């Protein structure tokens, strides 16, 4: 009797790219709910816009490149790019912002580099940076959390939809519903000579960082912890980022707490936690070895602090990640682990 031949191993594969990517999406659910709680429906609408354009761009690029659609759309990597980019946008940003960003991310940062697995840069961050540089005004118009402006002026779902697709509805004072983010506020105030202790008395600040923001941070942290528990990501990169950022912040805070914010503030502000657990951990553009990933994370953390403290932008996750993406092959080269049976260096 004859049989077909195939190579070992014969056991069924334990996981798939789609399963990994889907778990990342699940891990973002609690923080997304918190986001909606504090800032309204904007983020959900942004996500939907980004997902629609991302899938369209992905399908278009795949068919242009002659690749099969089903396995590559099923890997959910375009969804991750879309969702992460939506997280980086102000919730009431015009719809075309998300579309432009996500199309740039998928077409240029991903497929022109060879598609899944070959991109040098994190696509979501590449898209974000393009938007930040090209449309600085729209990209920094952040909505204020509800408690700052009061229940009365809170944007309803329909109003948010209108704001995104047709501009803010008449009768709503843009200045009333938008506000600087805590990082931005702190930065402007510091440059005007104020000290931290006095700045943080503003109602925008909560226990450790921005009111609302810090809670979203906590839920992102929970999601990240779950991903580590599920072994979708490993601890090296998130730990590196938070340690690099928090450590450097701690040093300066220790030296002068009146002009340098606390490490807790830095960690729970802006995109630090999102970046540490969900953005920097994108495996394609990160180094491959454990040691390399720790170094990569640390460098990102340090760069974020440097950009926040002395750079031209209030937050620096995207720039830090993109800069370190470029260094990933170099880190890989110098952190090759010792193979079994080879001499310890």
């Amino acid at each position, binding site marked *: 009797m*004859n*049989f*077909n*031949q*195939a*190579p070992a191993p014969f056991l069924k594969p334990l996981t798939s790219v789609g399963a990994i990517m889907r778990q990342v999406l699940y891990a973002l659910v609690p923080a997304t709910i918190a986001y909606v709680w504090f800032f309204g429906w904007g983020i959900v609408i942004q996500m939907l816009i980004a997902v629609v354009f991302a899938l369209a761009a992905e399908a278009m690029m795949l068919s242009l490149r002659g690749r099969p659609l089903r396995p590559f759309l099923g890997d959910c990597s375009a969804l991750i790019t879309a969702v992460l980019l939506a997280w980086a946008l102000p919730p009431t940003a015009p719809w075309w912002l998300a579309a432009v960003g996500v199309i740039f991310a998928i077409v240029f940062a991903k497929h022109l580099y060879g598609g899944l697995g070959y991109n040098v840069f994190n696509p979501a961050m590449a898209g974000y940076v393009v938007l930040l540089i090209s449309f600085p005004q729209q990209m920094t118009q952040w909505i204020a959390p509800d408690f700052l402006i009061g229940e009365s002026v809170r944007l309803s779902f329909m109003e948010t939809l209108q704001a995104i697709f047709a501009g803010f509805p008449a009768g709503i004072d843009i200045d009333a519903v938008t506000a600087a983010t805590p990082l931005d506020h702190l930065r402007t105030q510091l440059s005007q000579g104020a000290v931290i202790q006095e700045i943080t008395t503003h109602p925008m600040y909560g226990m450790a960082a921005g009111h609302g923001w810090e809670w979203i941070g906590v839920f992102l942290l929970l999601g990240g912890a779950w991903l580590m528990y599920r072994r979708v990501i490993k601890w090296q990169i998130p730990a590196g980022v938070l340690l690099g950022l928090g450590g450097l912040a701690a040093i300066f805070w220790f030296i002068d707490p009146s002009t340098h914010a606390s490490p807790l503030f830095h960690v729970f502000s802006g995109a630090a936690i999102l970046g540490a657990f969900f953005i920097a951990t994108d495996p394609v553009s990160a180094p491959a070895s454990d040691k390399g990933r720790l170094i990569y994370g640390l460098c990102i953390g340090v760069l974020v602090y440097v950009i926040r403290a002395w750079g031209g932008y209030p937050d620096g996750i995207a720039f830090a990640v993109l800069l370190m993406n470029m260094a990933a092959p170099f880190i890989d080269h110098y952190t090759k682990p010792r193979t079994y049976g080879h001499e310890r260096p």
Partner: protein
Amino acid sequence: MLTAILAMTLLALVFGALLGYAATKFRVEDDPVVERIVAILPQTQCAQCGYPGCRPYAEAIAKGEADINQCPPGGEAGIRALAELLDREPKPLSAEHGVEKPKLLAVIDEQTCIGCTLCIQACPVDAIVGAAKQMHTVIEAECTGCELCVAPCPVNCIDMVEVPVTVRNWKWPEPEKWLSPMKDAANG
């Protein structure tokens, strides 16, 4: 302005000197180019390139007298290696010099052989043993498959056969060629 120009000039000089020093200090002694070409050529000694052996061909390439695509046994892989070594564009094998074939082995039909020694004289690597009026035989391990012995044989008793694949020289196939996705390899 002037200081800037001066500073740049000075920097350029310093770095230029450093680079120059490094270039002489850490120079890697390379094999002469002929040796490196010889190392790439398959050493079949078949003379299909138009030169009486691999080394003369290598020397001709080094002098620029011969092109890199005249070696059929080396095939495309050989041309690519030569192109890389000499920093030239790879090109397809020149048809007038022959076609790339799987590696062959000369086999003498011992019933027909009359012991004329002509093939022994033709063999570039002394891979045929025998004496006048005695039957000849090919030392399999030494045969390069150059086919130079085939023409001189007056009784046409030399055949070129493909080297058989056995469990001892079998190679794992390239997975892409073996494993078309969603489908198993067919029998055989």
